């Protein structure tokens, strides 16, 4: 049944429930299309048997009348999530051959909600990257191509590039992503899908390979806002195994979805209008503002004065935490071990980490080690922590004037593979709009808003108050309804 892979998460859930098709039919259809989509390098591991097993369980559950919230929905899981019995490498050679004996809380929550797993999704190594080019397993190709007749392979963004491409190419109805400084939102924008990073602490980080602990957050990526709400409800929730997890009930986000924006004030931060950003970004932003106004919202100009410090702050804090988080990959207990003949322990560390980590990961470990070093700690790490507090305070103050903030998600449309891979600063600039919400721990979502002149998707970002995912989702829905984004890439692969 070809049409089944065109369905989204909620549609599959409802169809299975209503008996329009069986879960097994859905799983088989996706398993087949996943196999056909291998040219995109989206999946690092395919698990068709797990998708089928969950589907059969769903069909049985339907027969016995105890369907779960995601029964019959097969999903792709970013390879940053540990999956019991299924290889988990976080895009790194240093974890080659590592099969965890445990399941991350988030992927476990999805399983318990009845979802099946199609496979593990390619990503930037340890989630460090904005183009998926740092993956040890090769870059993911975006299903999108420029409408200029050229066939330059484009990036799906990163670090959740495999996740984004899978949804855009219909190789999964929904997927998990993770976002440390834009890793859900930027790829979602690049491939024309929706993705939300919830408030820091909504989703447990237990079993998620750590990049930067104070920033890492899991979130769903899917075709539309409703699907994101459905998935997030299943993923989120208090987890006593994560001390930073929020001990709060999970709201019924899907049931409360409403695109009525009357009475809501949308803030437009002036600091997000930066030099050198192409006109098409401003244009889609204007379009978004018009949509919000049309949905009944009041538009207010606001100021987030410390915005310009967000990116440098992020590129101190995230590498600092990463340099420590990645110290455990030492060749002693699991993953890659390179032990030179006659070498000692230090030789083994050096050889293992030299061979196991890619260039970008090494760069960030070095930056992080430097900013934490005696004599530099106060000038870099400590100062960055202070600036981070100021950035969070900017948002606190702005919430006195508005309920949500609307900005572009990324400063450009998707770029070609190789275009920025030798220029780390240009690559880091991709996250210039995404990083402030990460530093403040706020819920933020990207929703597709239009195509640029080359026919590539552009996304807009909505940032909300802490714990107010509902308003973010509602505004996303209002934008989605009015922007009328229906484009999808042609299947050339």
């Amino acid at each position, binding site marked *: 049944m070809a049409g089944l892979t065109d369905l989204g998460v909620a549609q599959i859930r409802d169809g299975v429930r209503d008996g329009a098709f069986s879960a097994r039919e859905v799983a088989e259809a996706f398993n087949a299309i996943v196999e056909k989509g291998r040219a995109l390098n989206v999946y690092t591991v395919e698990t068709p048997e797990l998708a089928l097993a969950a589907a059969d369980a769903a069909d049985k559950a339907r027969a016995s009348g105890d369907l779960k919230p995601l029964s019959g929905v097969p999903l792709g899981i970013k390879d940053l*999530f*540990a999956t019991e019995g299924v290889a*988990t490498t*976080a895009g790194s050679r240093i*974890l080659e051959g*590592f099969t*965890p*004996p*445990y399941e*991350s809380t988030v992927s476990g929550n999805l399983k318990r909600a009845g979802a099946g797993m199609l496979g593990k999704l390619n990503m930037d190594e340890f989630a460090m990257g904005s183009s998926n080019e740092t993956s040890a397993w090769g870059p993911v190709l975006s299903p999108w191509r420029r409408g200029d007749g050229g066939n330059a392979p484009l990036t799906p963004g990163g670090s959740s590039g495999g996740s984004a491409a899978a949804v855009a190419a219909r190789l999964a109805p929904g997927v998990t992503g993770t976002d440390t400084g834009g890793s859900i939102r930027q790829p979602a924008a690049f491939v024309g899908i929706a993705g939300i990073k919830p408030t820091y602490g909504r989703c447990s*980080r*237990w*079993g*998620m*390979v*750590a990049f*930067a*602990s*104070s920033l890492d957050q899991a979130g769903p990526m899917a075709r539309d806002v409703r699907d994101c709400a459905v998935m997030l409800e299943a993923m989120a929730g208090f987890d*006593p*195994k*994560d*001390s*930073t997890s929020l001990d709060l009930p999970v709201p019924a986000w899907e049931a409360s979805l409403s695109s009525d924006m009357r009475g809501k004030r949308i803030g437009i931060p002036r600091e997000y209008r930066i030099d050198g950003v192409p006109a098409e970004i401003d244009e889609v932003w204007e379009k978004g503002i018009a949509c919000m106004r049309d949905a009944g919202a009041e538009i207010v100009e606001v100021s987030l004065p410390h915005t310009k410090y967000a990116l440098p702050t992020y590129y101190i804090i995230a590498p*600092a*935490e990463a*340099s*420590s988080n*990645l*110290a*455990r990959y*030492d060749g*002693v*207990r*699991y993953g890659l071990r390179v032990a030179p003949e006659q070498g000692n*322990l*230090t030789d083994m*560390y050096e050889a293992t980490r030299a061979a196991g980590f890619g260039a970008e990961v090494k760069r960030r470990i070095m930056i992080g*080690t430097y900013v*934490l*070093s*005696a004599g530099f*700690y106060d000038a870099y*790490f400590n100062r960055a922590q202070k600036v981070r507090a100021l950035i969070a305070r900017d948002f606190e103050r702005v919430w006195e004037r508005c309920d949500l903030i609307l900005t572009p998600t990324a400063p450009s449309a998707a770029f070609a593979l190789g275009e920025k891979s030798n220029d780390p600063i240009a690559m880091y600039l991709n996250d210039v709009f995404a990083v402030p919400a990460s530093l403040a721990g706020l819920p933020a979502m990207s929703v597709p808003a239009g195509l640029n002149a080359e026919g590539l998707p552009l996304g807009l970002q909505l940032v909300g108050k802490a714990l107010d995912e509902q308003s973010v989702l509602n505004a996303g829905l209002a934008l989605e309804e009015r922007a009328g984004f229906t484009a999808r890439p042609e299947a050339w692969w």
Partner: protein
Amino acid sequence: MSDYRIHGATGEWEVVIGLEVHAQVTSRAKLFSGASTEFGAEPNTQVSLVDAAMPGMLPVPNAECIRQAVRTGMALEAQINPWSRFDRKNYFYADLPQGYQISQLYHPIVGEGEIEILLDDKDEGSARRVGVERIHLEQDAGKLMHDQHPTMSYVDLNRSGVALMEIVSKPDMRSPEEAGAYIRKLRSILRYVGSCDGNMEQGSMRADVNVSVRRPGQPFGTRTETKNVNSVRFIMAAIEYEANRQVDLLESGGTIVQETRLWDPDKAETRSLRSKEEAHDYRYFPDPDLLPVELSDAFLADCRASLPELPDAKRRRYEGALGLPAYNAAVLTAEVETARWFEALLEKLGHEHAVRASNWVISDLFGALNRLGKALAESPVTPAQAAELLRLTADGTLSGTLAKQVFEIMLETGEDPAAIVEARGLKQTSDTGAIDKVIADVLAANADKVAEYRSGKDKLFGFFVGQTMKAMAGKANPQVVNELLKKALG
């Protein structure tokens, strides 16, 4: 201040000592994981996913470890910080799976406190106060095993993640004896509180010993730190060795380098491990996986309410309310087990007999256990049995000699004293008729000595007592024998 001095070739030197004691927190589970902490298990059988630092694993603080650190701080009358935080101390070693130790550098859970030490148990005037700088919580590391393979080392992670309290003293000690008294007193307090078993052989308590020397009255000298010394004797020996080494070095024109040293118990010397220049840059920063530790008033009140009577207070009570000699009070309160044993005995016997009971415990019981090579916990005689024995002596049922006999049988068989007295007929008799009859026989058999006594040789009285007691197999009440003999000898 101590007058302990090292007499160098060029004059006198004063020793300055500070101790950093690592005490394993008594808790069934580790500081940040649910894995067991039991000593002596097979390698790598008490290791959770968190302890092995598997990808994506996160630490969750063990509330019991936090409670124990707070109770310890309270026992040292220390500042308890209602807000503290965990930091990461980053370094690579094979026994450190995370690549960092979770510790508390910037905001420890316990601040300044104080420990009172007695250099002489009999003399309150020998009391000194040693400042405690701080107590923080941290993870222990695993252990490398070098004897399992010809070319490789193996790692045992059973200890990895076990909770330690690092108790940092101020540089307030001035002699090996003071350091020894400090460590013994600290150990005693920890065991009273129940926050550490103080078992130095099993590594539950070990000390980093900071030593420097100076001319009396001069500023502190450069110190060295001798790591992981694991007995009171070794700590004192390491200080003595290190202080003498430093004096020798300084007097021969050398300078002390700030360095980390190792104690070699076989050679009884310290050896350089690494200098300050080679020291790690630990890149401490707040652990982003953990929230700050915030202690509520209710939690603090609960911790305080759970504290037992501590050794100093107990010693003063024994001396005051119970009227014990200072030495007895000090001996009986030094170890929590001794005090518990003594108090269980008093509970049965009555506090009015405290002095006699304390003497009996210290001389008779300790003497016997010492002879048998047993610890108090292994005593064949229970406090209740001891109370019974002392009561039988007090009410005249047993003479001192009989009591000793009965006690020996108790030690051997573990039987109750009353049962022993009954079964073996060891009861003392005050039956004047029976005693008079024996006395009459003794006097008749020793008519010559009776005559001598009556002519003024008073010393012979003891002879008659001895003969009478002997004839009665030691069971006669000596007081009654005395009275009746005096009457008979007229």
